[in-house]
């Protein structure tokens, strides 16, 4: 089996430990000065790709992201975690947020350029929880897709995946090339060590403007965020002395 080329898509998201707040104006969340990191599911996808290369099944791991120039941070982290080369499909800051539709369109053009045998993505991003990019990309490319992958094994010209579904585990054999999306239990990602962080600074990171990749101006987004609100604050409970008082309160509140 000839070693494969693997493309891993990653996203820069607000760190999972941050308490997210709605930004003034109600159109988005506060992002300035807030800790961002590599999306956890993307990290799992990357770890799997790096393990394939370490085993000798993959020859090259290319990591890509679609976003503003700040996404370089997560690409450098990905290089420190073992990717060979990185590509940032760059969009200017301050534009509308990119959704799965736009990202899948960009990645499909990147796939045409790079010709990987396997595309690995995280199953969803922890900011929008869409769980759509992998599926849209596979459809755009007309490739086989394996989503919610919790186990992966390469065979000649194919990949056998175990998928975690609500009803149980499903095993599929997909012909390559294929798009896979990683679920939580696929692996436990490594931590980047200082030497690998130093080495990553020298690995290639290409900046590719989105219009250049697409060959035309990007289509305008089809979704518009109307309003973002935080859920209503928790009201304190009230103690009542006896059942009669409870009934009185419930009646007064129009509940009974």
């Amino acid at each position, binding site marked *: 089996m000839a070693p494969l080329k693997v493309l891993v898509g990653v996203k820069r998201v607000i*760190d999972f*430990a941050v308490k997210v707040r709605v930004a003034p104006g109600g159109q988005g969340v506060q992002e300035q000065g807030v*800790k961002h*990191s*590599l999306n956890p599911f993307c990290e799992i996808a990357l770890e799997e790709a790096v393990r394939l290369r370490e085993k000798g099944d993959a020859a090259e791991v290319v990591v890509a992201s679609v976003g503003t120039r700040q996404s370089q941070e997560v690409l450098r*982290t990905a290089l*420190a975690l073992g990717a060979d080369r990185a590509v940032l499909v760059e969009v200017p800051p301050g534009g509308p947020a990119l959704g799965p539709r736009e990202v899948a369109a960009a990645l499909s053009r990147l796939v045409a350029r790079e010709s990987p045998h396997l595309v690995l993505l995280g199953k969803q991003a922890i900011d929008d929880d869409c769980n759509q990019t992998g599926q849209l990309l596979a459809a755009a490319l007309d490739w086989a897709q394996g989503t919610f992958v919790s186990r992966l094994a390469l065979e000649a010209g194919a990949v056998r995946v175990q998928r975690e579904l609500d009803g149980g585990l499903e095993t599929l054999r997909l012909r390559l090339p294929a798009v896979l999306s990683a679920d939580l239990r696929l*692996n*436990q*990602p*490594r*931590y*980047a*060590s*200082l*030497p*690998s*962080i130093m080495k990553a600074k020298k690995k290639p990171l290409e900046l590719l403007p989105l219009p250049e990749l697409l060959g035309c101006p990007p289509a305008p987004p089809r979704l518009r965020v109307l309003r973002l609100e935080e859920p209503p604050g928790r009201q304190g409970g009230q103690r009542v002395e006896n059942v009669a008082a409870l009934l009185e309160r419930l009646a007064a509140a129009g509940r009974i």
Partner: protein
Amino acid sequence: MSMRRVLGLRWALGRRSCCSKSPLPPDFVEDLRAVVGAPNVSTAMAVRQQHGHDESMHVCAPPDAVVWPHAVGQVQELAALCYRYRVPMVPFGTGTGLEGGVNAVQGGVCFDLSRMDAIAELSLEDFSVSVEPGVTRKALNSYLRGTGLWFPVDPGADASLCGMAATGASGTNAVRYGTMRPNVLNLRVVLPDGRLLHTAGAGRQPRKRAAGYDLTSLFVGSEGTLGFLTQATLRLHPLPEASAAAATAFPTVQAAVNCTVQVLQAAVPVARIEFLDEVMAGACSSFSSVELPVAPTLLLELHSSRHGLAEQQQQTEEIVQLNGGSSLTWAEDLGERERLWAMRHCAWYAALALRPGCQGYCTDVCVPISRLPDVVVETKRDLQDSGLTGPMVGHVGDGNFHCILIFDTQDADEAQRVHAFTERLGRRALAAGGTCTGEHGVGLGKRALLLEELGQEGLDTLRCIKAALDPHNLMNPGKVL
């Protein structure tokens, strides 16, 4: 009085009445509310009880009120208020201590500092970071993901880092990376009267200093009796490039402990070396469904570069073989290693599961390595002669081991045997030139042994320092001294 209460008092060896309480002054709770706001003050019984105990079996002693300050300025105001009215103050982090450190035996106000959770001043070049009490060690290491650095002190529980500084915590990695003490560079302390002290000077984190008495080291391990640790500046370490862990079983306890001593004397820079006796190995195995033979066991972990790791593995294998240990299967995958150590960290719960319905008491002696084999073997014999359930587990690389005594507190005879055993163990460790508490702290239960360990001069010096910083004995009274 219930047996548990008798035991609680006995352990304290009731010199002065450590449980005397005065009620809060009138309108005091209103004054507390004025500082932090009504939602951040509680006198509800459930909340107070939650804050009146930790993971030890010391009887719950709820404070009279619990407050949640959000900033160091509020801690200062609250402390000044309590100081003015002579109200006892008890700092609270995560409540995961093992010596009754948060039990408010004289009532007063519990300062729950967990809402102060800022991580600040991270310097990747200086390998340092400052954290407030609400930051736990797992939260910090998660924050540091991707930087190539970590904070290695690992006491098992996901404890507050400032709480770990307050108890001088240690853990499985201490043999290679040290305990809290060498890894705390600076502390922002609120003194009992509300004044703010930076133990190494405000905003300073040099890697070494010789400027004046070492106040940082004084407050590390002070167990909340000298002031509130509201921020700790910590020394970070580079993550190892390669790690491997393994478990190996030995024919006897002596063989396992001898192996440890030899590994250390061969200067293998082992990162973790943990001992489990056959009872503990059996308990952990069934509790965590990890396959371990029921025999005295060593769990080891090595940290190095790729090449260095192979060399360390070879050296370790030779020594293990020499001592009759079973062959080592090294786990290099992160998931596998985490499973192995999670099993070790569940030792407390695994031990409790041996006799459901019973309580646990954990001893914590630490002796010089040269005396470790004798002390461990003698302790094991004493356990068997006393007919007690006491699985042994420990950081043998530091000469520190724990007997987790599981007993029925309602059974007066067994409780008495446990008490006698722990006294003998404490004295055995002291006679071997060691300490009665290697990492858990003195808290409520080991105050009598402290006198034997330090001597009258030592204890008097401690009392002088305490009197100088807390003349009215308001900071966590009834603990340590």
